[in-house]
């Protein structure tokens, strides 16, 4: 028997074929819209067929952490393709995970291009739902670093393909690597991994709106708020709850005149709501069903002779958007004037700090049990007896602990480093360093940067109402993914102008800051003042979490927004601002609405259908859109007062893309997206967001 002669690699026939392939590829790349370089699998040994001397696939490694009984095996029994599949068996696990990972080295990890997106895909079988696609990126400055979790993989008895599109690759990234993690008892088999450039073409954007194209534009509404909107909550139906209580008006307090109104942005109308107590100075947060839990309030104003200060109520109410009415729940265990309110991953609420019924500092940890719809007694609640100050910004971390950002209201000489991590379960408080000028962060604002998965917090500006210095321009950023997270100085807040157009000095910044998460993943920063209830600052900027830089010079709200002002995102992608209560006791009732630059850049993508509005953790939920999109996200509606809304968050939804049918993969971790109603936004390739659809998580 003779074997067929092998043809030289670059024989004439092969050269013709190679040339044909190259020409065809070039034509496809140039002419086919919607992809810049689609098609080629960028992975080395994605099929796991090439093995090293130990029999393990080249360019792959055994990875994971924690305590588990597990095995890695190159399986030859019915792989999806070729002769090999990867089988990871976890027989027992107390914590941690295991995964077969692409080797994080220059030879094996695929090269990627910043600004591009990639479809990561693998075939798998799994006996457990405790799996997740996890991706890492190589930063040219930082080295290899965790990027994000892309999707949970449902249990599958037969070979099943899962494809998830990465977020846009950040600047400074040259390689990525990923794997499928198993973190529960079970067997996970994987095979035939691919990574394909799926970058959508960015259409040319035309904008004829002049300065609004880059700065956005404000509009002052032709009507005023009927109440002093000191507390504002965006409701699950798109309306806005405006709570004044006595509205920092002692005359109204003396008369027992307490006010609330619901603003209907679609019609520009208001509905008055009977208000049962002085909810001025209360805390508030949306419960998982979209009702609003109100805690505490104002029991008394301070006496002129300083014999007593502000006093906090123990009262608590639930506002129901369906009935526009308050219902009383049981009292809190302590008075709460300026309390924090953070919803936890289980839907319960923890409230810390504030002033008690006697004007002293409230040291009780107060816990609202959502299932039982009541405040637990002190004895049922784990206590640290720590005084957290007033409106301490307590941000839920991905492991269920609370990060106290150091942003607060009032107070001087705050203890320790000014920031800490609080573990309710173990009652432990550990300090966090690095916050600049911790005693001048009064009415600064902290925000969990987009996406929530990135676990970074930005704290902006602040002052001190006691010593009354010029408010500062400081910003601090902390990466809570680090083993020992420490605040790092961020870029200085851009300078603005004072009344009359007088430029700020190089050191002047602002307190009373509002930060608003936008559907394009940026943070709009607006409003503020230089001193205690005085001297408004006209400045607004756009913070980009990807580059950690401010884009200065956004359009400024023509209405001063200092003490008792707030700004928040509306479901249509605009930002609404209310309130201003300077020292002379007046209150500005005007309402301003900001249209960010993205609203001037072309057509908005439409979410034409949803597979459902009830989303489970770890699920993939299908939407249809009318044009390609680059990103989808959930934004928790704001519940803000005094520059404080620790629950505001932007949760990335990694996409499984099939044309204009998009699977949106929700995290399995409720601490990243606490249960409740969220605004779902899709972002078009032109950077324009859709109008939000409302979905319920959990």
């Amino acid at each position: 028997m003779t074997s067929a002669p092998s043809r030289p690699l670059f024989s004439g026939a092969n050269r013709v074929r190679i040339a044909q392939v190259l020409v065809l590829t070039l034509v496809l790349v140039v002419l086919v819209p919607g992809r810049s370089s689609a098609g080629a699998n960028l992975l080395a040994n994605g099929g796991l067929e090439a093995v090293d001397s130990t029999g393990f696939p080249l360019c792959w490694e055994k990875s994971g952490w924690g305590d588990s009984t597990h095995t890695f095996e190159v399986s030859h029994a019915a792989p999806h393709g070729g002769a090999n599949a990867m089988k990871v068996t976890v027989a027992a696990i107390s914590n941690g995970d295991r995964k077969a990972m692409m080797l994080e080295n220059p030879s094996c990890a695929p090269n990627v291009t910043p600004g591009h997106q990639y479809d990561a895909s693998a075939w798998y079988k799994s006996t457990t739902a405790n799996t997740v696609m996890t991706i890492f990126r190589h930063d040219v400055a930082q080295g290899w670093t965790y990027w994000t979790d892309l999707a949970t993989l449902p249990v599958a008895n037969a070979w099943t393909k899962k494809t998830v599109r990465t977020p846009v690759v950040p600047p400074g990234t040259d390689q990525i690597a990923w794997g499928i993690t198993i973190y529960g008892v079970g067997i996970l088999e994987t095979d035939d991994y691919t990574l394909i450039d799926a970058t959508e073409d960015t259409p040319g954007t035309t904008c004829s709106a002049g300065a609004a194209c880059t700065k956005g534009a404000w509009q002052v509404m032709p009507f005023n708020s009927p109440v002093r909107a000191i507390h504002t909550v965006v409701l699950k139906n798109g309306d806005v709850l405006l709570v004044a209580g006595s509205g920092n008006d002692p005359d109204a307090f003396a008369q027992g005149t307490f006010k609330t109104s619901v603003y209907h942005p679609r019609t520009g109308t208001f509905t008055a709501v009977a208000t049962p107590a002085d909810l001025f100075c209360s805390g508030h947060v949306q419960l998982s069903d979209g009702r609003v839990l109100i805690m505490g309030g104002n029991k008394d104003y301070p006496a002129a002779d300083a014999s007593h200060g502000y006093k906090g109520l123990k009262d608590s109410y639930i506002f129901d958007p369906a009935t526009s009415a308050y219902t009383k729940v049981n009292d809190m265990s302590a008075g709460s004037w300026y309390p924090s309110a953070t919803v936890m991953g289980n839907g319960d609420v923890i409230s810390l700090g504030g002033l008690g019924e006697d004007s002293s500092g409230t040291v009780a940890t107060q816990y609202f049990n959502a299932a039982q719809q009541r405040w637990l007694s002190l004895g049922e609640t784990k206590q640290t007896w720590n005084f957290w100050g007033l409106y301490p910004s307590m941000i839920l971390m991905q492991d269920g602990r609370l990060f106290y950002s150091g942003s607060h209201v009032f107070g001087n000489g705050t203890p320790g480093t000014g920031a800490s991590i609080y573990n309710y379960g173990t009652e432990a408080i550990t300090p966090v360093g690095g916050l600049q000028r911790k005693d001048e962060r009064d009415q600064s604002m902290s925000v969990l940067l987009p996406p929530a998965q990135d676990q970074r917090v930005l704290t902006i500006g602040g002052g001190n109402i006691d010593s009354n210095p010029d408010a500062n321009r400081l910003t601090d950023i902390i990466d809570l993914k680090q083993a020992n997270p420490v605040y790092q100085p961020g870029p200085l807040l851009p300078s603005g102008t004072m009344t009359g157009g007088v430029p700020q000095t190089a050191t002047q910044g602002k307190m009373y800051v509002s930060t608003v998460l936008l559907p394009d993943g940026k943070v709009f920063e607006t409003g503020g003042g230089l001193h205690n209830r005085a001297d408004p600052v006209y400045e607004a900027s756009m913070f980009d979490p990807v580059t950690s830089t401010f884009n200065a010079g956004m359009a400024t709200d023509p209405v001063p927004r200092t003490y008792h002002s707030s700004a928040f995102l509306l479901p249509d992608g605009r930002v609404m601002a209310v309130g201003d209560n300077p020292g002379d006791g007046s209150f500005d009732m005007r309402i301003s609405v900001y249209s960010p630059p993205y609203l001037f850049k072309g057509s908005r993508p439409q979410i034409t259908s949803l597979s459902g509005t009830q989303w489970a953790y770890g699920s993939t939920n299908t939407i249809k859109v009318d044009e390609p999109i680059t990103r989808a996200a959930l934004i928790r509606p704001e519940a803000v007062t005094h520059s404080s809304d620790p629950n505001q968050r932007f949760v990335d939804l990694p996409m499984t893309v099939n044309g204009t049918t998009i699977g949106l993969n929700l995290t399995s971790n409720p601490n990243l997206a606490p249960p409740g109603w969220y605004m779902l936004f899709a972002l078009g390739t032109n950077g324009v967001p859709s109008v939000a659809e409302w979905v319920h998580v959990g």
Partner: protein
Amino acid sequence: MNRTRLTLAAVTGIAAIFTMTGMAVATLRAPSIPAAIPAATAVPEPTDTTWPLNLPPAADPTPTTQPPPGTPAPYVQPFADQPDTKDLAPRPSPKTPVKMPAFADGCNHAYGTRNQCVPLEFPPGTTDKCTWLKSHGFKKLTVQGKDTHLLDRNANHTACDG
């Protein structure tokens, strides 16, 4: 903070999630019955029930069960373990209240109506307090308490008019 502590944090968070969603079963603590708060003894003041307290520790909600098949458990990353950081020392149950200044809002409420805010400290560079007040909209400012800013030079209980 060590890995064990972090794991405890994660487990606690997961426990709470199970509690809410009903995923866990018998080993989770049963719905709590409000515990009686021990009577406060020798309380000098005031009416606030926050202190002093000497309570037994609250129940630990840590679960030991796995969620049912098909429902993913929360995937929690081992971030912010803080291995180099010591916990703050635990605080005892308070015996005295945390005193706060009566004018906690930085306003000297001896002046004007109670919703007005004459600052406790005027901003840096202020050379004439009355000029500053006038330029910030204060009119006919009454003096109802101690005139610490010395604004009532003619002692008629109206600031900056003489």
